[in-house]
């Protein structure tokens, strides 16, 4: 190595030293970034576990179909499956579910494959008193005219479901539907005007809330919340598949 070349060598060595420092610095940095990423992932996973434990959507503990005090049951008690539908006559998704599932559920119930209990209650009281009034007429009809007429009224209420933005049918309109379902007008009118169904609705609503029902429609299949479906049509189709 000649004297002339030395400065060049020194520069190279210096450059190599700087390069080495930068490399170590980069390494230190990458390790720290990696550490932070891992720490954040641990926090997210911990939060996810917390969130899962706080999620109450599956915690519905309700009596089996036919065992509720505030519902209408179709199908035999020895059916292999039981389905409970918590619903509000005003809730649009309940209307969709009803449209998509009613005839299949009725058929399966009549074939003895399922027992279904419809449990209407007053969820949407903040929107209108229609939820309460319609359920009250239903309660009077169920009490005075029996389950078959009540089922027809149930179906008619969904077929004539108002929009959540109104206009809402009057009590007279609801009594008309009850008569179309086969109820005796005088009997139903007397009951409705005496406010007979309102107490039933209040108790049904408390019972639904006590069971842990948060929204409508809430469908239980064999006691477990059934939510398999992106849309109400999917949900109804999947439910019927399970029952067949």
């Amino acid at each position: 190595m000649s004297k002339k070349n030395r400065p060049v060598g020194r520069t190279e060595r210096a450059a190599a030293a700087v390069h080495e420092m930068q490399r170590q610095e980069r390494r230190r940095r990458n390790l720290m970034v990696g550490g932070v990423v891992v720490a954040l992932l641990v926090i997210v996973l911990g939060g996810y576990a917390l969130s899962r434990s706080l999620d109450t959507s599956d915690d519905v503990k309700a009596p089996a179909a036919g065992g509720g005090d505030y519902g209408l049951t179709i199908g035999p008690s020895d059916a292999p499956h039981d389905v409970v539908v918590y619903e509000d006559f005003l809730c649009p998704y309940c209307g969709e579910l009803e449209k998509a599932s009613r005839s299949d559920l009725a058929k399966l119930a009549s074939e003895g494959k399922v027992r279904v209990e419809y449990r209407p209650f007053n969820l949407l009281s903040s929107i209108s008193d229609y939820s309460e009034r319609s359920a009250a007429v239903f309660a009077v009809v169920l009490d005075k005219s029996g389950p078959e007429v009540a089922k027809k009224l149930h179906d008619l209420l969904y077929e004539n479901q108002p929009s959540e933005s109104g206009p809402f049918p009057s009590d007279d309109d609801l009594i008309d539907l009850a008569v179309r379902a086969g109820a005796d007008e005088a009997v139903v009118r007397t009951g409705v005007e005496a406010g007979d169904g309102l107490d039933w609705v209040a108790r049904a609503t408390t019972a639904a809330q006590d069971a842990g029902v948060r929204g409508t429609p809430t469908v239980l299949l064999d006691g477990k919340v059934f939510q398999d479906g992106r849309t109400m049509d999917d949900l109804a189709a999947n439910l019927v598949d399970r029952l067949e």
Partner: protein
Amino acid sequence: MKEWVGLLARLATGAVWIVAGAVKLPDPAQSVDAVRAYQLLPSSLVQPVGQLLPVIEIVVGATLVLGLLTRGSAIVSALLFAAFIIGIASVWARGISIDCGCFGGGGYDADATSKYPWEIARDAALLAASLFVAWLPSTRLSLDRMMFGRALEPEGL
């Protein structure tokens, strides 16, 4: 100057995320319902997404406010806002009237259609702020600077 604007964008976006997540975290069931109401995800994904979203929102908000892994956080933030814009536009286009569930709530809302344009505009502004932060090499008062210094050019973070 840009770095100070970047700090503002970080703080504003991060604060929105923290509030949005903190409001939802105590009631994951509501968050799950809100996700379900979009009728977009397969039913098996609705629950995990609804449970995870508030947590991710809080973490992304915190890292943005602190300026930790700023670029990565800003990119996650931008992706989330893009997803929310798509979600809201999609329910709007399908005529589904729901509360966006952005800050808790969710489910049916009769007045929703009149709110969608504002919600999309808000999310678009926050998306732009996130992209701006992601584009900046670094911002003021960030943990990134304190921890990683400026010895090296920032590399993707």
